[in-house]
């Protein structure tokens, strides 16, 4: 037994590994937050649960990749232009399709957005092929950063910083600007907002496009992180985003932020310590919240 590590040596090892698992969880959580934020914003105002949101994430990633490969591997250019291009897609979807089903029952709304999942999954396959695309490195963020004696990817740290920045920007936008106030007003009472002269249909379009942009931004930021782009990548993240949106309370941005942190940490600790049940835990948490606190951790009670 003399060859094994002593207790004294093992303890800091454990601490290091827990800190690293925490950091990994935070970066996963911030990704889910970026996607869930758009989903939550759209649900909060339009009351439509958008299956196609994962598709916007995927399109954001592919377009970012496509643009950066044509612009001399400039990741930042791809990150700015790619999500903007996806916004055009979001605009067309809301303006010409979604707008006409707000008054219909739930299955029609959900399946309309699902139709776009099918269409764009295949469109991506046609344009970029069914295989996976490799991903580029980001200048300045491709290395790693030593934390407690172990290296942690700099890009993940960058993501951990971007998440709260986006949250802060959204908070400032919704709480402090004129447009944000109108969005909140229409969200709580559509008829009244329309009665006092808000052009609600145009406002809905703008919110949908903003939500689209957030999802696509998440996708663009995922390009260097996930390593590989695949046509089905949106179907995976959309379920995580649903879980987060539900845990935080459907329509609550604050809830989505903390929900994403919880799910990110749960999944990184789960993968580390109980790999067999990490996915199961996520969904049992989702079901538990729906059953005992359907308004979510941060939603208002009905």
């Amino acid at each position: 037994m003399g060859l094994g590590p002593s207790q004294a040596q093992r303890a800091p090892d454990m601490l290091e590994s827990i800190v690293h698992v925490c950091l990994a969880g935070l970066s996963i959580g911030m990704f889910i937050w970026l996607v869930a934020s758009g989903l939550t914003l759209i649900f909060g105002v339009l009351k439509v649960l958008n299956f196609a949101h994962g598709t916007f994430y995927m399109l954001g990633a592919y377009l970012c990749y496509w643009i950066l490969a044509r612009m001399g591997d400039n990741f930042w250019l791809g990150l700015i232009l790619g999500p903007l291009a996806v916004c055009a897609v979001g605009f067309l979807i809301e303006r010409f399709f979604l707008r006409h089903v707000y008054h219909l029952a739930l299955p029609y709304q959900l399946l309309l957005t699902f139709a776009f999942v099918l269409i764009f999954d295949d469109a991506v396959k046609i344009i970029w092929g069914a295989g996976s695309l490799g991903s580029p490195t980001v200048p300045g963020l491709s290395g790693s950063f030593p934390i407690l004696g172990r290296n942690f990817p700099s890009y993940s740290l960058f993501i951990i910083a971007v998440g709260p920045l986006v949250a802060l920007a959204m908070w400032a936008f919704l709480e402090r600007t004129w447009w944000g106030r109108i969005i909140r007003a229409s969200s709580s009472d559509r008829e009244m907002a329309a009665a006092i002269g808000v052009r609600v249909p145009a406002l809905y379009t703008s919110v949908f496009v903003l939500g689209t942009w957030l999802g696509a931004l998440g996708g663009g930021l995922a390009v260097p992180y996930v390593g590989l782009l695949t046509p089905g990548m949106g179907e995976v993240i959309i379920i995580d985003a649903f879980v987060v949106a539900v845990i935080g309370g459907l329509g609550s941005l604050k809830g989505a932020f903390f929900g994403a942190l919880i799910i990110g940490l749960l999944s990184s600790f789960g993968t580390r310590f109980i790999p067999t049940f990490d996915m199961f835990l996520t969904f049992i948490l989702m079901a538990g919240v729906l059953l005992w606190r359907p308004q979510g951790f941060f939603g208002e009670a009905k």
Partner: protein
Amino acid sequence: MRRYAIPLLAFLILAALILTGIFGSRFVVYIAMRVMILGIFALGYNLLLGRTGLLSFGHAAFYAGGAYGAALFFLHVQKHPLLCITAGVALALVLAVIIGFFCVRHTEIYFAMLTLAFGMMVFSLLWNLRDITGGDDGLVGIAREPISLGFASIPLVKPGQYYFLVLVFFLLSLGLVYVIRQSPLGLILAGIRENDKRIEFAGISLKNYRLAAFVISGGFAGLAGALGTLLNSNTTPFSAHWTHSAEPVLVSLIGGLQTFTGPLFGSLVFVVLREIIERYTQNWMLWFGIILLVIIMGFRGGIAGAISELLGRKTPSAVGKEGGRP
């Protein structure tokens, strides 16, 4: 003349199904079986969606329950096909009772999310409990043994033979769903869809009836899963994935919600169209998505609705609750 149109049509379709089994090529027989299995899945599912007005995104869990129940029974207990199917349906029913007990506390979007969560729980177990479920490989080597009746045995190995077992179960399901729809239970379910407050005032427990619809549809999903396992002689964990849960929803919607025959038309279109499109292109989902868009934007009665409009009948109302959302 119109009085005899429906029975005549039913007779013709039945004759066509039997003739397909006898004379159809291997490929046609296989496709016909897939249509019928999806038909059973969607027919049962539509009792919940079209009849009761509940949108579940987790019914693939019960399909997988039937599939894995039958497969595990085959591998560990007994190889008799009818017993395997019974075991599959039993497992699906048990799952549906447990999951349904929790899910019927909500309606609308919360119900959809709750069923999604439970469905994905089942998927994660199938995916991760490798020792029992085979993980991502699924369970393989489920053969179709002959059905022994003591004095004789009916072989099922050839697709042309198994076809008739699937046909029998298909017709039984069809009859059962028809009876359920016309029964007091079915009428109460329709009442719940139209106005749940009134039904509650009539002293009827909404939860119990919603649970009944949930469990019945789960049972049909399990039957479809068990038949599908025997057809393909294997199982896959993706049969429990949420994307598979979307299938009966799409099929019901294409065929026409709130109609009896809608899910059957939907299944036929779903399977056959896919085969046709995949002959020419790899991108069947793209075309399917476009069809879905057209139906949602323009033909909300689905195929069954369009047909009865052609026949000059009253179109079934396309939307469950008036005005959609409260």
